[in-house]
């Protein structure tokens, strides 16, 4: 198992994809972190709120949510790329079993997801620091919690990617399907489900993207809103309707939900991969 893990790590770091996708991740995180903290540090904002605004409590979750896109692309290519380049033949010929290969890939890409999450947090925080110092950070405990939840979401997305990539194995098709779903379709589906006449408005929080968003944003929104004391409830409500997360699950429920989706696709990929003829 450890030899297959080493092989997968070797494969990742001998091609360009991992850093090519990491570039937009850190750029986006840096820009969001910097801009958010800069706005929060504007004299007019400080005057209006009468307190320092912990922008990082929002910018880190927003950045993490962006990073999930790149993490899932990485995972999908990790799962399907070997089929595209037909290296899967050699991989299976050198693996003790297909399940062991998939396990090695899952661990490798989970690690990469974690790396992307940590990089996101690092660059977002760095942007905030150079823009307005430590003023825009919530408490250390909150910051840590927000970062951890964000990283967990990013990690889970790359694992989900490996699962779906192995399941569908056609790299182009799987990228299109997953990106269209996450960037476009789930939002549309939520809107449709929220039509009152359908009586399905309880469903949207249980969609995969909503679960992951709850995991990544719940704690940040709470920490941000609590800064405003008595007005916290109103601030939270406003924020949630603004970013479309109204009625979302708590961070742990969303996290469990999304972990379930990831595990489900991983299991489906395992089952499909086990049966597949490599011709």
């Amino acid at each position, binding site marked *: 198992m450890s*030899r*297959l893990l*080493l*092989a997968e790590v*070797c*494969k990742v770091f*001998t*091609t*360009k994809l991992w850093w090519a996708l990491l570039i937009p991740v850190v750029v986006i995180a840096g820009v969001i972190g910097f801009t958010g903290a800069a706005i929060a540090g504007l004299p007019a904002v400080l005057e209006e709120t009468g307190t320092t605004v912990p922008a990082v409590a929002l910018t880190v979750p927003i950045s993490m949510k962006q990073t999930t896109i790149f993490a899932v692309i990485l995972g999908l290519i990790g799962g399907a*790329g070997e089929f595209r*380049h*037909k*290296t899967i*033949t*050699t*991989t*299976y*010929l*050198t*693996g*003790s*079993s297909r399940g062991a290969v998939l396990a090695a890939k899952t661990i490798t890409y989970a690690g990469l997801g974690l790396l992307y999450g940590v990089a996101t947090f690092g660059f977002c925080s760095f942007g905030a620091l150079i823009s307005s110092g430590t003023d825009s950070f919530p408490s250390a405990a909150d910051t840590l919690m927000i970062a951890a939840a964000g990283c967990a979401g990013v990690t889970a997305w790359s694992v989900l990617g490996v699962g779906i990539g192995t399941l569908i194995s056609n790299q182009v098709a799987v990228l299109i399907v997953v990106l269209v779903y996450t960037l476009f379709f789930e939002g549309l589906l939520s809107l449709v489900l929220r039509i009152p006449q359908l009586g399905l408005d309880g469903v949207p929080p249980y969609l995969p993207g909503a679960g992951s968003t709850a995991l990544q944003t719940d704690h940040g929104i709470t920490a941000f809103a609590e800064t405003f004391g008595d007005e916290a409830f109103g601030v939270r409500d406003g924020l949630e309707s603004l970013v479309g997360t109204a009625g979302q699950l708590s961070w742990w429920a969303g996290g469990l939900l999304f972990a379930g989706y990831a595990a489900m696709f991983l299991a489906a990929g395992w089952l499909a991969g086990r*049966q597949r*003829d*490599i*011709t």
Partner: protein
Amino acid sequence: MHDGRIEVNGLTKHFGAVRAVRDLSFAVEPGSVTGFLGPNGAGKTTTLRMVLGLVRPTAGTATIGGRNFDQLGNPGRVVGAVLEAQNFHPGRKARDHLRCYAAAMAVPARRVDEMIELVGLRPAARRNARGYSLGMKQRLALATALLGDPQVLVLDEPANGLDPEGIAWLRAFLQTFARSGRTVLVSSHILAEIEQTVDQVVIVSRGECVYYGQLDELRASQRRRVLVEAADPAALVGALRAAGIGAIDLTQDGRLSVPDVDRRQVGDIALAAGVALYGIAEERTDLEQIFFQLTSGQFTSGQFTGGQFTGGQPYGWAPRHGFAPPSGQPAGHGPPLPGVAPLPGVAPEQVQRSPYAPPPGHRSGSEQ
């Protein structure tokens, strides 16, 4: 240590309605090179992939050293395979490719450079596989297959894309490999391509085995005849008949066709009978013709009409007669494989430059 015997038993594979392989059984013994022959589409690749656990059989079993592929543990150390040329990530360097799979098999990194030397890829080892020619990809595939120092080697049409030098080297290599007590199974759709290399053959047609046995036995079933041009054919026929040789035919060009005799025998009889000979030639039914007869059932329309194969060499490269693999291999005990000299390196011209990243000067400026 696995004994490296490949055993295929009642192997069957259906792809939907297509019966790719039907009830195939054969065994490949260690210490021998077995040719796996058949026309394109006969089920060779599917069979090899079932042996290697890549395709699930509909019925039957295929084992290596008595075990299914998925029970081998670290399969790369037991069996190496060259299945198709195009199995590299275009953006990964050849050496990195080997490093990753060396890690998968837990063989030391030193072995990577040894294999690069062995297949003659050193000039291109630090270049992306994107710029590799078909022949270079075959060399890299072979290097990958040999990384784990396997007991068994399975090769699917390995000569594709190799230059004549590479093919000659591969032949000698496979024989040396087998002589060291290991097992080689090599497929081809051209008998002549592997005729000099193999000890036994499995010939398949339409997914079924049509011949399985020693190549020598197949050769023994060849018919031979002597074509002779005589000053007085009638007198020669009389003399031959008197010597107990019958079934003599007259060919269209006026020569006599005498079956199952020796050239010298006919010459001696002619001399004794006082008949002048203007020409004498011995002819054998080509092995290729036997192969064709065995497998022709695959095609309903007459793509191959008799005699077409007797002339030139198919694909123009395979020497049929008088070819001997390089003898007197150095008997050094180098780690890759005792007694095998490395394949000469790829010529610089073979290295295609990547349109994106021109390789750092493998050609000196003096050439420009």
